[in-house]
């Protein structure tokens, strides 16, 4: 169990050494230190996880240091290891180690590599602190720590204004969620007198039915606490309303998107709900909210994903949508299924992102799928890896064999359990989830067809033009950080002889081995992770050892749903595939026609339901407007004018008057004396 100290603190050490050493140590050394640390962490994590799977491990807590002791509020630094943590440990360290390795190739031409690797390791440390937290405050530490790392990595190419804007947006939107989280912690402390997670979970059942005052109302204690905490989860996991930062976060380098914005950080919210599941189980309204938000996000993000052109944005919305599945699984009480989907999703989504990164790498940092096409032959390894990822996310499998790709096991289980739950909210979630599965299949295959099938459409891409004219991809400006002002010059470049062929004479290269090895390993995960671990996650209460709330009855119900429900996901998957095939292979004029026919709906989806515009109008512009008003009219125009400046003015005017009174004329002084005397006599007499 002591190895957990190494697992958690090695990445921190590597981040500090790499970050402070930076150029003094040199690229290779920093990369070796950080990547090496992560592989050690990963190697130490798997035995812990496998011990839990085998049933031979006991949960435990390793104390590290006292933190805060204030009156009866106290919390310490400690590392907790139980089944739930073990699952997260392998997910985080595995994906992180592979992403570190992948970045050797992907970031090869970046001038600022030590900083990048240090940030990645820092992120991993914060994420590990989050999942090993024994109290809510340490969880919050990790929560904010990953937020910081995410901010730094989204804004890694800090010369790009768009990257900076996205970084700030991610941090600030997350802080909105954190406000809920913080209030939730305060409330929990008021109710339970502690922030220790095991103690809270033990005391929670006795508190169901209790009431508490909140903002002047008497409300159900557990519901309000859980909803507040869930607001935190919504921020971190980009759920509807607080999701707007996630698509913009794609400004960061692609390995970052894979690690942080797909596999690990964004799943922290799901982890939190599962970690606190005994608490949520006492809060029916809160669980209803979780289910509803999850289902709504699931369908919302899927609709947006069908219309985007940027390959990374499609996958980002897909992530958002898959997180919705996890939340409504938790909302209906199937925490095991939620964690299972989190587990499988980490592999296939990281695979898809890294695959997309490989495509982007090959296409000279072009991310618009309209300029892709026919890449199947050019980058075959990437193609096969992404195909596996697509099969996994769309949930391809054969029911009667009980075998399929990772998503087949986890997503189907979620849909079944939502149906089995039998409540209105559960049924709503089932239908939303099923429809979203259709859309998932559609946008995933759309991505594949646009990228790998059809004819090359590379010639119109300014990135490709640039590459062709700058002598392929060996120049320094390969890096988007220094590329932003080059774009306009190449947009109207003279077409090359091969222009008609649509390739512009460009030859995509398959990525280097450091990128392909992680792809290969994740491909194995996308294929086998579901099938191998299905039993442990879904059906084995002993596996969880009480680290989540395990609802035996619900699982029995899940296995007893009608056959049609069990096949629903597979059926809609085929429909989605068929539509995508029709529209992007068979008759490529269909998408344009459909967009025109469904004009308003299409624009609504394409513009992401206008959330950004709405928030800009509701929050951002008013904030600046009020700021200016408070400053100019409040501070300068009112407080200063009537305060110090006013006082100064009064004194100045007063002294002018006083000066006039002292005019040196005896009769006027005598007059004042006389008046004073009269006044004094009047005062004394009456």
């Amino acid at each position, binding site marked *: 169990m002591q190895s957990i100290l190494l697992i958690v603190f090695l990445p921190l050490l590597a981040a500090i050494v790499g970050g402070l050493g930076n150029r003094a140590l040199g690229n290779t050394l920093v990369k070796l230190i950080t990547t090496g640390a992560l592989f050690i962490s990963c190697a130490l994590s798997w035995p812990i996880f496998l011990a839990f799977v085998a049933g031979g491990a006991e949960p435990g807590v390793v104390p590290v240091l006292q*933190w805060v002791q204030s009156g009866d509020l106290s919390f310490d630094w400690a590392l907790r290891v139980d089944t739930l943590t073990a699952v997260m440990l392998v997910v985080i360290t595995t994906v992180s180690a592979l992403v570190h390795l992948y970045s050797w190739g992907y970031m090869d031409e970046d001038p600022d590599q030590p900083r990048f690797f240090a940030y990645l390791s820092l992120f991993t440390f914060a994420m590990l602190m989050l999942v090993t937290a024994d109290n809510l405050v340490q969880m919050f530490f990790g929560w904010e720590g990953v937020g910081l790392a995410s901010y730094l990595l989204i804004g890694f190419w800090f010369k790009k204004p768009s990257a*900076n804007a996205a970084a700030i947006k991610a941090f600030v939107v997350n*802080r909105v969620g954190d406000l809920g989280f*913080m209030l939730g912690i305060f409330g929990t402390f008021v109710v339970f007198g502690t922030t220790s997670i095991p103690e809270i979970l033990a005391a929670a*059942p006795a508190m169901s039915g209790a009431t508490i005052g909140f903002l002047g109302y008497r409300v159900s204690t557990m519901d309000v606490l859980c909803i507040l905490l869930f607001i935190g989860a919504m921020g971190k996991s980009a759920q509807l309303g607080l999701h707007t930062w996630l698509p913009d976060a794609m400004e960061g380098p692609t390995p970052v998107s894979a690690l942080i914005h797909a596999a690990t950080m964004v799943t922290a919210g799901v982890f939190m709900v599962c970690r606190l599941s005994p608490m949520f189980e006492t*809060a029916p309204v809160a669980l209803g909210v979780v289910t509803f938000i999850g289902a709504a996000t699931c369908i919302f993000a899927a609709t947006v994903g069908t219309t985007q052109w940027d390959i990374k944005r499609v996958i980002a919305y897909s992530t958002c949508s898959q997180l919705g599945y996890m939340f409504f699984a938790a909302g209906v009480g199937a925490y095991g299924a939620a964690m299972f989907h989190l587990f499988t999703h980490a592999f296939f989504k990281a695979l898809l992102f890294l695959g997309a990164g490989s495509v982007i790498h090959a296409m000279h940092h072009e991310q618009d799928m309209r300029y892709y096409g026919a890449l199947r032959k050019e980058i075959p390894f990437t193609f096969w890896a992404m195909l596996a990822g697509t099969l996994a996310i769309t949930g391809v499998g054969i029911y009667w064999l009980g075998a399929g790709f990772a998503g087949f096991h986890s997503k189907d289980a979620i849909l079944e359990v939502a149906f089995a*739950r039998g409540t209105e909210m559960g049924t709503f979630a089932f239908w939303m989830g099923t429809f979203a599965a259709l859309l998932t299949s559609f946008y995933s295959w759309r991505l594949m067809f646009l990228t790998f099938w059809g004819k090359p459409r590379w010639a119109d891409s300014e990135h490709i033009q640039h590459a062709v004219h700058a002598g392929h991809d060996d120049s320094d400006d390969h890096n988007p950080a220094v590329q932003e002002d080059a774009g306009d010059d190449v947009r109207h470049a003279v077409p090359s002889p091969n222009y008609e062929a649509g390739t512009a004479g460009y030859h995509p290269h398959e990525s280097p081995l450091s990128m392909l090895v992680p792809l290969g390993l994740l491909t194995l995960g996308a294929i086998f992770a579901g099938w191998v671990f299905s039993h442990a996650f879904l059906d084995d209460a002993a596996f969880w050892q009480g680290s989540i709330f395990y*609802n035996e009855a619900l699982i029995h119900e899940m296995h007893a749903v009608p056959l049609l429900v069990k096949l629903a996901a597979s059926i809609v998957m085929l429909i989605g595939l068929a539509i995508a095939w029709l529209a992007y292979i068979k008759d490529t004029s269909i998408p344009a026609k459909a967009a025109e026919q469904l004009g308003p709906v299409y624009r609504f989806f394409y513009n992401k339901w206008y959330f950004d515009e709405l928030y800009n109008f509701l929050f951002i512009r008013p904030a600046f407007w009020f700021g200016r008003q408070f400053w100019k009219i409040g501070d300068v125009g009112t407080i200063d004018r009537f305060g110090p400046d006013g006082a100064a003015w009064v004194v100045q005017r007063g002294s002018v008057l006083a000066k006039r009174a002292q005019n040196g004329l005896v009769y006027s002084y005598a007059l004042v004396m006389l008046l004073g005397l009269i006044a004094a006599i009047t005062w004394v007499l009456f």
Partner: protein
Amino acid sequence: MDFPILSLMLLVPLVAGITCLFLDAPMARLVALAATLIDLALGVLLWINYDIGGAQWQFTERAELFAVFDYALGIDGIALMLIMLSVFLMPICILASWQGITRRVGEYMAAFLLMEVLMIGVFAAQDMFLFYIFFEAGLIPMYLIIGVWGGDNRIYASYKFFLYTLLGSVLMLIAMLWMVNVAGTSSIPVLMQYDFAPEAQTWLWLAFFASFAVKMPMWPVHTWLPDAHVQAPTAGSVILAGVLLKLGGYGFIRFSLPMFPEASEQFIWLVFGLSMIAVIYTSLVALVQHDMKKLIAYSSVAHMAIVTAGLFAFNVQGLEGAMIMMLSHGLVSGALFLCVGVIYDRLHTREIDRYGGLAINMPRYALFFLFFTMASIGLPGTSGFVAEFLALAGVYQVSTWATLVLTTGIILGAAYMLYLYRRVAFGPQKNADAAAMSDLSLREWVMLGPIAAAVLWMGVYPESFLAPMRADIAALDARLARAAPEGDSRPQVGTPRAHEANYMEGAHGAAAGASEGAH
């Protein structure tokens, strides 16, 4: 302890300050640095010898002067921490002025050393009039520092500063005279246990409030702060933010709360109300500033609002949170002003738009600036978080509304600080002169490094700072207990229904469980 260490700590800078008046510039700098370092060493000795869990007042010294007026010094844990903050920041201030100040260096150093005398005195004073003298005299060196070595509009700023702070003090002095008359003593420890009649408390409280609210500063008497900061030289801003702003909070915790508990309870609504307005108002104003120092000054007002709210939460978390916030803010905003000073020294402008892309040519600087930015917005692991978290946890027990509004500060704070950071450190390099600036010098490393270490220490292991104050806060909490307000959250235990939400009784029991859960 017989050795008069507190008097010595007052004497060293006093003698050095007088000496500086007669020295040339290089010598004055050295003498000032040496004196502040000696005081820092004495401060460390003080901390080491402070007996946690021992007597409430330690290192006491007493000499009767006349009437009820005594020269009485002594510290408790709260005063100890604030003295540590002062002596810690002082050498850094001297270093920060090393090259920036070229005119009248001797006088400048003398003013700073006098400032140090008065600051230590104010925290160590055990006699109310002694306190008053130190408290008010602190105005004079600061007035001179702004008025003589300040920016272009320094005269206006220094007058504004003086007018504001003097206004409240007059009322406080009258209240003090009345109190001494009634209680027959000017000893602060005695007065802290003295029970004034509740009706009298109201007026006394308001008189003290007038002074402390300005010093804090609380909305709407905050407008002196941005001007004072903008015009003050870097080191002046550091001391202003680092220590002078703490006088208000110290006043509340030393006078208003223990001496007038009933009145304090009566005015919770006022303090909470002003704090809530301050957080929203000043944060939004900070968002639209073009001047770096002004932005940080406004953020100070927002942070101080957390302090006042925490103090008036009437519980241990609130009080300790407020104290840590004072220490943390002293370090962090001091460091932020130093960060501004570093680039001001190079480019001589505080205009945010003149910078940009500094992370390219000044990566070490960008790292420090980022660290302090994150500490300012309360990232866990830094001192800012411990402070905010405890203070707000305290406030939550009294008012959920106030907590909700005050906690929006973490969103707004992130917005204006990151927006500042983005415009200064990120983005393309816009100006050739900004792009040519050199990274931190050794002197600047020595200034920023120790503060960063202290911020991290306070964030990861705040016990070192909480432990000396624990007994004093507990004593204050006990004294306040009789007036403590009843919170609006008040949990009430109902009938438990275990695992009701997804309760299922075997097959097809789902509907029944759900309908039960819904009620």
